[in-house]
């Protein structure tokens, strides 16, 4: 009897096991399918989004120019305290590195890097290398003499400190510069001089412009979105086309159209003059109001569409209920309707704000130099002066700004139970 029951139990257990393994197998299959479905997107995001961002983060601290191109000097300087002038052997190492790197065409990269630490070093280094190349390599003392003869700066402690600072494989220089700080000769953090400190100001300007644009979009977009969500289908369709048409037009076309409209002899000025409202053409282009105008126009659809999607889903019954319970329509709107649109406001606001802090083309075409936002300087460092470390560092600060903003939004969203869209 017992043996029979054990038998049955065992059998049951075996069945359960095979059932479980079958289940697991089928689950595994499902999981595999799911991974396969997600894989293209995952790889895409990894390839074109995550990797470049990581590379950018790395570039902002990467410091290869001197480290890689002047190996002997770098090695010898790593033990040097930096309190007194180095011995002749250092000059020999430097002289060898100078010769080699001018041969390999890497001299200008190293010279440019050291120039960031001490201005004027670029020409000192290239001229010295030109002089050195005329003579063969000799003893340490002779090489030291040659260097000192080429430029008196080689006999200055600050020069060697600058080389030492720029020869480490990683640097905080770019990140510090991006927030108007720098490293002193003794390695402590200090503010940069008055005539170079611009980035904090520009970050502030970027955030301010974005804030003004976002709030304006909200003020203009809210009533329109409300109308879109509540109007009759035929009118709503027409309005929707009005919102979407500019949305589908290329950003560059819309920006250039603003240039045509706003310029001194442009449509707006001509019209105002012909209507005898003004005598002299107004200055509408290359100033802040022009930038605001064009940015608001560009970003308005994002706000309207976010608001619309939320407003469309709010049942008109709530408003009617509130009014039937005795609330005035205006009070009902503020107390009942508006709180329900908050997720749309938050989503639209975040979208507009984050899009506008990264804007580049519109301020570049319509603004004066005093209206340029931070992306202009990122583009400047990438495209014109080839200082990718600085471009990456500014990018990092911008990224941190975005992340902070998103964190704040998340906080608020959790508190008020808001959801995106």
């Amino acid at each position, binding site marked *: 009897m017992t043996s029979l029951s054990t038998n049955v139990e065992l059998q049951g257990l075996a069945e359960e096991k095979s059932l479980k393994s079958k289940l697991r197998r089928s689950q595994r299959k499902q999981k595999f399918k799911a991974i396969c479905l997600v894989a293209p997107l995952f790889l895409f995001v990894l390839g074109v989004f995550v990797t470049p961002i990581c590379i950018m983060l790395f570039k902002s601290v990467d410091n290869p120019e001197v480290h890689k191109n002047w190996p002997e000097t770098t090695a010898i300087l790593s033990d040097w305290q930096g309190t007194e002038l180095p011995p002749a052997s250092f000059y020999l190492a430097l002289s060898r590195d100078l010769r080699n790197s001018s041969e390999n065409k890497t001299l200008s990269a190293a010279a440019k890097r050291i120039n960031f630490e001490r201005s004027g070093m670029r020409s000192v280094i290239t001229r010295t290398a030109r002089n050195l190349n005329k003579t063969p390599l000799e003893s340490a003392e002779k090489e030291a003499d040659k260097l000192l003869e080429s430029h008196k700066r080689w006999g200055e402690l600050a020069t060697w400190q600058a080389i030492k600072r720029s020869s480490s494989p990683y640097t905080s220089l770019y990140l510090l510069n991006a927030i108007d700080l720098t490293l002193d000769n003794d390695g402590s953090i200090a503010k940069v001089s008055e005539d170079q400190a611009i980035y904090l100001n520009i970050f502030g300007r970027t955030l301010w412009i974005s804030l003004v644009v976002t709030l304006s979009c909200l003020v203009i977009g809210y009533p329109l979105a409300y109308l879109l969500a509540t109007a009759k289908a035929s009118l709503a369709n027409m309005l929707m086309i009005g919102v979407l048409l500019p949305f589908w037009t290329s950003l560059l076309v819309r920006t250039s159209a603003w240039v045509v409209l706003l310029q001194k002899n442009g449509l707006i000025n001509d019209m105002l003059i012909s209507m005898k409202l003004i005598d002299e053409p107004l200055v509408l282009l290359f100033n802040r109001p022009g930038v605001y105008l064009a940015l608001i126009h560009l970003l308005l659809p994002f706000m309207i569409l976010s608001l619309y999607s939320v407003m469309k889903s709010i049942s008109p019954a709530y408003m009617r209920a509130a009014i039937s319970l005795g609330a005035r329509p205006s009070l009902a709107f503020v107390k009942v309707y508006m709180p329900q649109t908050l997720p749309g406001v938050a989503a639209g606001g975040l979208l507009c704000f984050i899009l506008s802090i990264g804007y580049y083309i519109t301020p570049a075409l319509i603004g004066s130099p005093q209206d340029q936002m931070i992306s202009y300087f990122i583009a400047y460092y990438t495209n014109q002066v*080839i200082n990718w470390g600085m471009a990456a560092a500014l990018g990092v600060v911008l990224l941190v700004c975005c992340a902070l903003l998103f964190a704040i939004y998340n906080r608020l969203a959790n508190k008020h139970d808001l959801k995106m869209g």
Partner: protein
Amino acid sequence: MKAIRTALFSAITGGLLAAQVASAQSLTVVAFGGASQEAQRTVFFKPFSTTSGNQIVEDSYNGGLAKVKAMVDSNSVTWDVLQVEDPDLLRGCESGLFEKMDWDKLGDKGQYLESAISECGMGHIIWSNVIAYNRDTLKTGPKNWQDFWDVNKYPGKRGLRKGAKGNLEFALLADGVKPDEVYSLLETEEGVNRAFAKLDELKPYIQWWEAGAQPPEWLASGDVVMTTAYNGRITNANKEGKNFQVVWDGQLYSVDSWAVIKGSKNKDKAFDFIAYASSAKVASQYPAHIPYGVAHKEATQAIPEKIAKDLPTYPDNLKNALREDTAFWVDYQDELNERFNAWVAR
């Protein structure tokens, strides 16, 4: 399934092959766009395509080496021949971004102006940065840089090229510095401070341009009352019916060169093109299309007087002129641009 795979494979390889064939036959030449590139198209690109059978693909840029560096560093060189400004040529050559000039193809160095010959470049044009104004709106125009700075006598906006190069020289000239003292003064901190202080005076009236096509547009639309401009763009706008005036006093002239980008897949053809464009017969036709000086001595002599008087190199136009100091700008470009950017953004 297999059929699909084969079809896909052959489509991809076919596409790649076609792309490779296309790149092997065509030469990509990059210049500064606008009127000057139109002239290049007529005089160099189209005739070269017909005579050599190598199709020329054009691109344009606003100067600077970033894109070239990105191409060379990432080993994906898609440009072949590049028109470069003097300081960029020197820096690019120092950092190994350009091929060394192939003198076997270009022939005897003696037939070219000395200032046009360098390790990595062959002089293409001699161009100038000048003051220009619209005679339709300004009956008596500025005569020199002092007038350019005089906002009481000539109220209105002024166009200047965005960047330190040029503007610091002009500011010193406006401040009464003689042309031959400008660069020695700029090498000192006081000189630079003096230039920026002079620029401060004009700052509220400046509208910055970045592309060479902007100044003539702004003069025509009345956005600016006077502007600096590439001399050729102004003369060419006049050919199209505008009434612009070039002020030669205090002109800043420089050489642009052809350079071949390091690692170009069409290196030989690139030098063939440069040799073709630099030859006396071809180069001499260029000033008729846009008034820039050319590097070939024989070609320079062959230019008719009517055209020559609009060139930066015409003796009358060289009075008070300033030759851009390439070595100075190679050495100080980074610092001065940094300071300029901080100044302009404030």
